[in-house]
């Protein structure tokens, strides 16, 4: 028995609201929607936890998006983000208030500090979940996650320890809708982080640019190793279709596309209406990030590429011929549309 806990002493569903410099990570709203369902099922409160410097507006938004109660730890030590202060504050609140479930976005930030909460509190932590459920009789959290490249889903349970913690992949749930009429309580909690001494680290420089969020795109044109580094045809088609460019891990590692555009198990999960995979063999790692796409088109010169088994339409052919031809057709059609509108 790992820890001497009585599960009855633990209640409420907590959702961590990730924000950087006042910008909320979208996964936080996705988790509020999912957390609301879990809390309703258990008949408990949905509590949002927020850390930052001067973040009351975000606390109010968390209520509008479904939280019953918001815990705010407001202090300059929380901006910019660092694992030490975040972990220490979160762990202290867990020990004081005994949440039953705690959900954190599976972002670099969430995956960076979740262990600093789970280790000192001896909580069960499941990484990178894609489905969450409450078990009927036990009311235990069933945290499901893809294993080994995504061919199987493992259901992870935490029967003896509390809280049941999970980091959850961004982009797999719909964000919570706003309801201005919702009411809730905002509580400012005591900041337990003892200033810089507890921080272990200091940020020298932080550079954040406007990086595109491919998880929101309706149309995605993705390139893989078969592009041989020539992404211009991918960009051209994406441009014609009004979509976003994405890439496989290999293509990102080769430096052909930015890491923010990577689709797959270690990249982003996308759910566009149309996903075009060009020069992508279809490794399971990649399929996992694109499986939620509505319509998938594959273009590959290798007729045996596994991507064809996972596509609605496939062309065996040279992507450097097919993509420009398709882009041309799309532009023509759009040109006609504009013309007919006149």
């Amino acid at each position: 028995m790992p820890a001497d806990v009585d599960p009855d002493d633990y209640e409420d569903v907590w959702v961590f609201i990730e924000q950087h410099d006042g910008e909320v990570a979208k996964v936080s709203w996705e988790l509020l929607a999912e957390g609301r369902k879990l809390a309703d099922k258990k008949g408990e409160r949905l509590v949002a936890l927020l850390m930052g410097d001067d973040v009351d507006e975000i606390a109010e938004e968390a209520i509008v998006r479904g939280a019953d109660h918001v815990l705010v730890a407001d202090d300059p030590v929380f901006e910019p983000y660092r694992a030490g202060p975040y972990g220490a504050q979160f762990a202290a609140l867990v020990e004081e208030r005994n949440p039953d479930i705690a959900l954190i976005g599976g972002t670099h930030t969430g995956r960076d500090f979740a262990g600093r909460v789970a280790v000192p509190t001896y909580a069960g932590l499941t990484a990178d979940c894609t489905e969450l459920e409450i078990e009927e009789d036990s009311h235990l959290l069933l945290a499901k996650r893809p294993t080994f490249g995504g061919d199987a889903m493992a259901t992870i349970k935490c029967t003896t320890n509390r809280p049941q913690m999970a980091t959850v992949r961004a982009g797999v749930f719909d964000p919570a809708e706003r309801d201005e009429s919702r009411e809730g309580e905002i509580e400012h909690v005591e900041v337990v982080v003892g200033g810089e001494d507890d921080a272990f680290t200091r940020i020298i420089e932080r550079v954040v640019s406007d990086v595109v969020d491919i998880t929101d795109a309706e149309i995605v044109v993705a390139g893989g190793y078969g592009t041989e580094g020539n992404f211009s045809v991918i960009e051209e088609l994406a441009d014609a279709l009004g979509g976003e460019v994405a890439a496989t891990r290999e293509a990102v590692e080769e430096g052909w596309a930015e890491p923010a555009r990577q689709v797959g198990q270690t990249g982003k999960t996308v759910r566009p209406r149309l996903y075009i995979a060009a020069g992508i063999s279809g490794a399971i790692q990649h399929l996992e990030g694109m499986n939620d796409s509505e319509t998938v088109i594959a273009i590959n010169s290798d007729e045996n590429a596994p991507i064809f088994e996972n596509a609605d339409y496939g062309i065996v052919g040279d992507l450097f011929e097919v993509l420009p031809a398709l882009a041309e057709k799309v532009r023509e059609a759009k040109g006609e549309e504009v013309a007919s509108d006149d």
Partner: protein
Amino acid sequence: MTREWNIVVCVKQVPDADDVSIDPETGTLNRSDAAAVLNKPDYNAIESALTLKEQVGGTVTAVTMGPPFAVAVLETAVALGADDGVLLTDRAFGGSDTWPTSLALAAIAEELEADVVICGEESTDSSTGQVPPGIAAHNGWAQLTYVEELEPAPEDEELIATRDIEGGHERIAASLPVVVAMEFGANQPRVAGLHRKIYAETDFEPEEYSASDLGIEDKVGLANSPTSVGGMDTADPVPRKKEMVEDADDLFEALEEEGLV
């Protein structure tokens, strides 16, 4: 004069992801015959450990937890240039989830008086990425994850990292001791030299530790793991039309029919 650093690199033996294939009939994974190899992201960890040693001096010790045959990944690390290897092996470790696994690695890091512990970003088999922050949390040390580049600052007893953050990067300085998780693909791992390879395979013997050697026999293994696997389902393949078309014209027509253009 600054002092030299004890650098510990944590490595893991995993089934070879390249050997794993999808059965086109059933849509499930074939990995029964996959060989056990060094977790790919750990090559980046070893490379940065060796580079760090070249910059500040000191030793690189590779550590793994696993059955006796996991010594193979220590041999790989030693062949690449690690000075020594430590095998944490004990039936008591069996079934450990990330909490006890990171405890065991934290304990050996303390035992070896590590200044820097370097890990790969995550393992290719379970891909939780939780072990490096877990080690840091158990020991109350600093941590640096998703690291693209390391710059040692031995005069300040600090390690500076450039790390990937959402939408950009940051430069961050951590006081020693510190746990690092290198981003997969962050560097170009070196190739093992022949002499080193022969040494690793013939003369190298790892130091072995059991759970009780580390004083953690009551805190590891399945019984002390907060999480457990409650079931496995085959992920159903997403149903697709799998319609083959001839050229861009046909494809465009199909897209029009679907109302996608």
